[in-house]
């Protein structure tokens, strides 16, 4: 068919392409292209009308230039002209250009759509197909708006040619994927399902893709396709290899259609109709049987096509997860592939077995292949195959084989490709924790991880080992001994220094009885690493030193000497300097009692989802940017709100993100040694010296009600005791809000009859609407459940709703009530205004009932930045350069309720000498001024 000779083709195009290919340099190419562009432009602009052929040739050249990677900014009009040509090839080139280079020039879109409309109406099947291809290739919303209603009609019309139906089906699919709202469902959908019965295999092949997509979105409306698909599949599977003529591919009947039909069936559970189900199971068995037959051809295409159907069949069997017999057969088949000489099949078998491993019916069968998989890990030459082997080992791991799998992964890690090391580290860390019977094994494993791949051990991993050691007192002595030994290595990874520093700081006393690890030796060992470490690690070590001061009074002078040295006391790094100064001072000033209280052993961490697991999920799944953003915001709020009590419990339960999860181990500067590990060391230590009562009070977070802390922030821990932790995350917009309440079971025993109730008093009821759904009455040990509350502020209010929780724990009935921090200021919208406007409004609100003033003593250090953050957190705008006295703070905003909006102005005047504040609120409503003043006064 190659020598169709009429005329001379597009000779000019070929010459141009040759020229480009002969260009010796990029510059020469650009020069040649510019010359051509100038030529084409002049032809298009010239007086002489171009004939269709020339137009086609030039448009084609432009397309070629664009595909080379250059920009094209003209020629669209000429291409659109080609669309209305009656010559097929000219039209074809026009459509190709439009498909590749469409832009949303509205004028052109209208012309293009017109041309398409004409072709669709032309009843000439080749023209109709070209138009449909163009719509499918562009697939834009504009195209959808113009044609989505017409195409279903073309698709099911009795007189449409087969080729037109095929194009129409896939064209509609593309539009439906892009803008499902534009495709009207209607009586055509029933007829589309019946295309599964069409005589023409090509039509069925195209239609199945469309039907599958429609089924996913509206499974109930398309249920009838199940039996049709099964009978079609059955006919193909049982046909002889030559029955389907051109639809047989290397002796495999209709492989593409078979795969698509099997995919369609995966949109549904197993067929309910026994006859249909029987027929389908027969099909699946036939496919599995055929896999055992000798191949009909040696060509790889034959085996690929055959195995494509086999793998899709196995996917369907796994999807049903209900036929133990088929699952085990599938597993055996994949087992054979694990040792196949084709790399592709080994790869796919490993991948597919991963899903089989999670089915209870086949988990044991998968485990029998462990040796083969471990062998793959050691011998496969292709990293992507080894990666699959790691995934499968991870999936098949359980308590029985964990030690073996973890050991194999660790030894593989020594030589693993850099690209997959971090993931293996995470997997090992998770398996070691999940299946640890003996926690000494866990500690050894993690230390090995750090030794082998220290650079790939992320913060989550070493934070986690510390959390576990702190929570399990049976392993603390062992951990101290092991890190002490590991630290003796001449070169050890910085992550080991961190873990070692932290653990010895907490539990060094457990091994101090041994003269080989006496306090001084421990200290000297750690300090010998100090100078090689980065700033955050040094900061952590300084905290360890102050903990040593408490644990081992005998080394106090040595440590004080170190702290007192210029390299610490005058360190260029502010954090290090501050720690050195404060710790030195603490060690000199504080009594042993205070020291012992401040530097007490860390309290156990609340149990919840491992942050490592969260990280692995994140690595594997689509990235969750929003979560990250939330955390950042939350963190900045925490930092601003520095001197809050008991920050140990502030990090949110709600976000399983690294920084939020880590409590005291938190952000870059690791916690100072005290049990309430604050995020900034300053506030805490100041408190210790100024007012020892307030420093001791928050030490036991207990059941303290944290209501006041939520006035200026939306996320954090509301309540915590030995059993239960309640976290909040909320957002407000105008008079509406939504609050997520997270109930975390801190124990390992389930809570029964767990019933949280929201109570609004009679006074509050008319002003505030709360809506929520009940939560599951059972909360598993270590689990967390979430409840969403939708909030509507009807009018201004004073009281707060109460959250009352009842549940059974063990044999006892528990009852917890806390105030839910939904306060009037949450419905603030900040308002920016200039000085003049502010004072004008201020004067307008001069009626004595509108103003409320409070003069009070500062309860926290008077820090300008913290104050600003609180006013902003309160919800009003912070107006700069409004108050003539720059030390004062001025804010403005509007409280939104359903019934009305209330403008609010506020002014806060600090008096540093007297350590006092004067707060003035002016709003149009007395009650609002009163309430806002109360709420805000309590914050400073």
């Amino acid at each position, binding site marked *: *068919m*190659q*020598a*169709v*000779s*009429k*005329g*001379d*083709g597009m000779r000019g*195009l*070929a010459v141009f*392409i040759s020229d480009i290919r002969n260009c010796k340099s990029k510059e020469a190419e650009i020069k040649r292209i510019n010359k051509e562009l100038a030529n084409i432009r002049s032809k298009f602009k010239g007086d002489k009308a171009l004939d269709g052929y020339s137009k086609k040739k030039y448009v*084609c050249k432009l*397309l*070629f230039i664009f*595909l080379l*990677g250059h920009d094209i900014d003209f020629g669209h009009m000429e291409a659109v002209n080609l669309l209305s040509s009656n*010559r*097929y*090839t000219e039209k*074809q080139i026009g459509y*190709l250009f439009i498909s590749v280079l469409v832009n949303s020039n509205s004028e052109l879109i209208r012309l293009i759509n017109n041309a398409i409309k004409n072709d669709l109406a032309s009843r000439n099947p*080749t023209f109709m*197909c070209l138009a449909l291809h163009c719509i*499918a290739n562009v*697939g834009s919303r504009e195209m959808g708006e113009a044609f989505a209603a017409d195409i279903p009609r073309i698709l099911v019309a009795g007189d449409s040619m087969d*080729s037109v139906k*095929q*194009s129409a089906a*896939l*064209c509609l699919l*593309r539009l439906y*994927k*892009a803008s499902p709202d534009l495709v009207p469902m209607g009586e055509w959908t029933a007829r589309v399902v019946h295309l599964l019965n069409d005589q023409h*295999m*090509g039509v069925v*092949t*195209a239609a199945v893709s469309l039907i599958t997509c429609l089924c996913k979105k509206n499974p109930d409306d398309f249920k009838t396709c199940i039996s049709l698909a099964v009978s079609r599949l059955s006919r193909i599977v049982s046909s002889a290899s030559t029955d389907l003529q*051109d639809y047989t*591919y290397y002796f495999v009947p*209709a*492989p*593409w259609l078979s*795969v698509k039909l099997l*995919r369609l069936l995966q949109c549904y559970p197993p067929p309910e109709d026994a006859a249909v189900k029987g027929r389908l199971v027969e099909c699946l068995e036939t496919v599995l049987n055929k896999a055992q037959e000798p191949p009909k051809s040696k060509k790889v*295409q034959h085996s*690929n*096509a055959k*195995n*494509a159907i086999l*793998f*899709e069949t196995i996917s369907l069997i796994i999807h049903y997860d209900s036929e133990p017999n088929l699952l085990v057969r599938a597993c055996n088949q994949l087992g054979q592939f694990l040792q196949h000489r084709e*790399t*592709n099949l080994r*790869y*796919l078998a490993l991948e597919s077995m991963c899903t089989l491993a999670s089915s209870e019916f086949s988990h044991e069968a998968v485990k029998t292949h462990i040796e083969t998989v471990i062998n793959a890990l050691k011998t496969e*030459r*292709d990293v*992507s195959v080894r990666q699959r082997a790691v995934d499968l080992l991870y999936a098949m791991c359980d308590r029985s084989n964990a030690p073996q799998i973890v050991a194999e992964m660790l030894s593989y890690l020594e030589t693993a490709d850099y690209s997959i090391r971090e993931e293996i580290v995470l997997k090992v860390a998770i398996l070691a924790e999940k299946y640890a019977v003996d926690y000494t094994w866990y500690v050894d494993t993690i230390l090995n991880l750090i030794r082998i791949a220290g650079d790939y051990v992320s913060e989550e991993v070493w934070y986690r080992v510390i959390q576990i050691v702190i929570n399990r007192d049976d392993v603390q002595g062992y951990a101290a001994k092991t890190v002490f030994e590991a630290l003796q290595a001449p070169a050890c990874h910085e992550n080991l220094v961190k873990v070692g520093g932290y653990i010895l700081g907490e539990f060094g006393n457990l091994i101090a009885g041994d003269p080989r690890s006496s306090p001084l030796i421990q200290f000297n060992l750690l300090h010998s690493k100090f100078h090689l470490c980065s700033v955050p690690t040094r900061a952590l070590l300084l905290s360890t030193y102050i903990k040593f001061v408490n644990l081992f009074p005998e080394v106090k002078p040595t440590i004080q000497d170190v702290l007192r040295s210029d390299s610490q006391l005058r360190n260029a790094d502010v954090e290090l300097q501050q720690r050195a100064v404060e710790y030195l001072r603490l060690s000199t000033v504080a009594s042993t009692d205070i020291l012992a209280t401040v530097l007490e052993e860390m309290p156990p961490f609340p149990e919840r989802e491992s942050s490592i697991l969260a990280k692995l999920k994140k690595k594997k799944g*689509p990235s969750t940017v929003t979560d990250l953003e939330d955390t950042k915001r939350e963190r900045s709020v925490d930092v601003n709100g520095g001197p809050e009590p008991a920050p140990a419990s502030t990090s949110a339960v709600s976000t399983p993100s690294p920084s939020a999860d880590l409590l005291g181990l938190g952000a870059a500067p690791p916690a100072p040694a005290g049990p309430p590990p604050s995020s900034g060391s300053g506030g805490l230590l100041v408190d210790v010296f100024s007012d020892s009562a307030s420093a001791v009070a928050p030490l036991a977070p207990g059941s303290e009600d944290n209501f006041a802390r939520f006035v200026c922030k939306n996320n954090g821990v509301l309540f915590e005791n030995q059993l239960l932790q309640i976290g909040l995350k909320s957002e407000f917009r105008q008079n509406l809000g939504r609050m997520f309440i997270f109930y975390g079971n801190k124990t390992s025993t389930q809570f029964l009859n767990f019933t949280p109730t929201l109570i609004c008093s009679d006074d509050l009821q008319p002003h505030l609407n709360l809506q929520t759904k009940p939560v599951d009455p059972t909360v598993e040990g270590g689990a967390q459940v979430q409840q969403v509350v939708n909030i509507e502020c009807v009018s201004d209010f004073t009281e707060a709703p109460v959250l009352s929780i009842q549940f059974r724990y063990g044999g006892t009935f528990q009852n917890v009530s806390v105030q839910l921090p939904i306060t009037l200021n949450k419905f603030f919208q900040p308002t920016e205004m200039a000085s003049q406007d502010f004072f004008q409004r201020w004067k307008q609100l001069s009626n004595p009932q509108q103003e409320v003033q409070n003069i009070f003593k500062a309860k926290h250090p008077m820090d300008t930045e913290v104050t600003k953050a609180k006013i902003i957190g309160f919800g009003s705008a912070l107006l700069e350069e409004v108050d003539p006295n720059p030390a004062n703070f001025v804010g403005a905003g509007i409280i939104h309720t359903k019934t009305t909006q209330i403008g609010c102005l506020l002014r806060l005047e600090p008096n540093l000498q007297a350590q006092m504040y004067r707060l003035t609120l002016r709003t149009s409503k007395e009650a609002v001024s009163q309430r806002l003043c109360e709420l805000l006064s309590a914050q400073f």
Partner: protein
Amino acid sequence: MQFMLLFSRQGKLRLQKWYVPLSDKEKKKITRELVQTVLARKPKMCSFLEWRDLKIVYKRYASLYFCCAIEDQDNELITLEIIHRYVELLDKYFGSVCELDIIFNFEKAYFILDEFLLGGEVQETSKKNVLKAIEQADLLQEVRYFPRCVTPFSF
């Protein structure tokens, strides 16, 4: 399927077909990244790899790489045979197709692809039917210009 790319051993892009809306910038970035990744792989390695959240299926024919990006649920082996069927179609149409045919007759390569795959899905698998549609067009038109080349794709 999300897109298909054909590129030479030197990394020159010979054909690109996108079935999802992406900006030109994003397309160029993806192309650069994938061409690099695929060219760096050794001959006996497997034809599949994970890339971003997609699966890449590729195969080399003579001097040309054919590379498809499919979604998580899609079937790798059948995609490999989509590539092969496309090569067969080109081969039948051009007669022992080689890279130069695709360079000089790139528009034909696109037309053939459109008859075979539409919107990223297989439209027609019968070789006869696909080529019939293309032939009809050729009967109406002039001849192709085809400089012959030395290394046809091997089967």
